[in-house]
């Protein structure tokens, strides 16, 4: 918009932003505000049940807590690599911008795989959204757990695709398609993620439409905005980890 205004000699018509920054960044912050309330509602639904019910299951033993702690380490490390990518983009260092974003994506993928293994373990023990094997009096445990952590896992998946688009642009499309095909082929059909990986196919379609309809060279501002989204995903996990896992620890 500002470029058009300058071309027509109308730059003075537009007042500077009230928030001292560019509109895309304000837009992302506003989206994150709304997402804060979405995750807030899901966290409260889980935590209210956890606190008010003495029979709430505590299925997370040493193995689960170790797994969740490594997942937390992956997300925290991915935030560090993301902020290094933003710094590299501001310096105009395109190679290291791409490299740091790829490291961020790897940490994100590690998080998703570990989380998928955790879900599979719980499902194998008999947990569904409607019942759990540990406490028949608390049927809402599975529903609130899967909704909250599933919503977060979806956000991480979208974040990985978003970073792939920003760093690799159209090169990312065949890579994403290959990841989907390999995941679909490797995961047995009895596993819920055999169908869950179709989220990658949906992401491929959306990314392809965006990259074909509006091809562009993503600049430092785009990297910074993608970083805001990624750090938010990390931020939400900082509340899910203690409220869901650490408050339901089974000490053996």
């Amino acid at each position, binding site marked *: 918009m500002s470029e058009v205004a300058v071309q027509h000699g109308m730059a003075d018509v537009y007042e500077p932003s*009230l928030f001292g920054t560019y509109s895309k*960044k304000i837009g992302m912050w506003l989206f994150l505000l709304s997402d804060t309330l979405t995750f807030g509602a899901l966290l409260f639904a889980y935590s209210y049940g956890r606190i008010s019910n003495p029979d709430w299951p505590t299925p997370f033993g040493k193995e689960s807590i170790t797994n969740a702690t490594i997942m937390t380490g992956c997300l925290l490390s991915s935030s560090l690599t993301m902020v290094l990518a933003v710094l590299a983009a501001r310096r105009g260092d395109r190679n290291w911008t791409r490299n740091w974003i790829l490291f961020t994506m790897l940490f994100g993928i590690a998080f998703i795989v570990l989380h998928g293994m955790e879900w599979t373990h719980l499902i194998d023990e008999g947990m569904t959204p409607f019942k759990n094997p540990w406490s028949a009096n608390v049927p809402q445990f599975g529903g609130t757990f899967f909704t909250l952590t599933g919503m977060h896992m979806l956000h991480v998946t979208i974040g990985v695709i978003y970073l792939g688009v920003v760093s690799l642009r159209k090169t990312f499309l065949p890579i994403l398609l290959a990841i989907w095909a390999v995941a679909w082929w490797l995961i047995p059909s009895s596993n819920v993620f055999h169908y869950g990986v179709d989220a990658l196919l949906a992401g491929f379609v959306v990314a392809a439409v965006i990259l074909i309809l509006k091809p562009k060279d993503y600049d430092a501002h785009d990297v910074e905005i993608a970083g805001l989204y990624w750090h938010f995903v990390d931020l939400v996990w900082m509340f899910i980890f203690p409220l869901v896992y650490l408050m339901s620890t089974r000490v053996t």
Partner: protein
Amino acid sequence: MHTAAATHDEGKGQYFWVWGVLLLLTAVEVVLAYRQVFQPLRMLEALMILSIIKSALIIGYFMHLKYEIAAMKWVLMTAVVACLCLMCIFFPDAFRIVHLGVR
């Protein structure tokens, strides 16, 4: 294109420090929970205080809100404060149910 965040000191060192502190706080959380140092109410309070410190570090440094202008900070913190206020309503009510039952 003016950006308030683009003008601050961009040393990498501070981000490694923040990352280290975040990992340390996570380790403290795990030890507190696994050793069950506190009763559930105290545990919830301790974990929430640590989580709020961690989120403040992420928002302030990694998301660069520390370097934005005051108007941006005030507007963006509204939702966070609203969530924290809701927490102060929901969690005490959940404890009330434990002691009094559903009425």
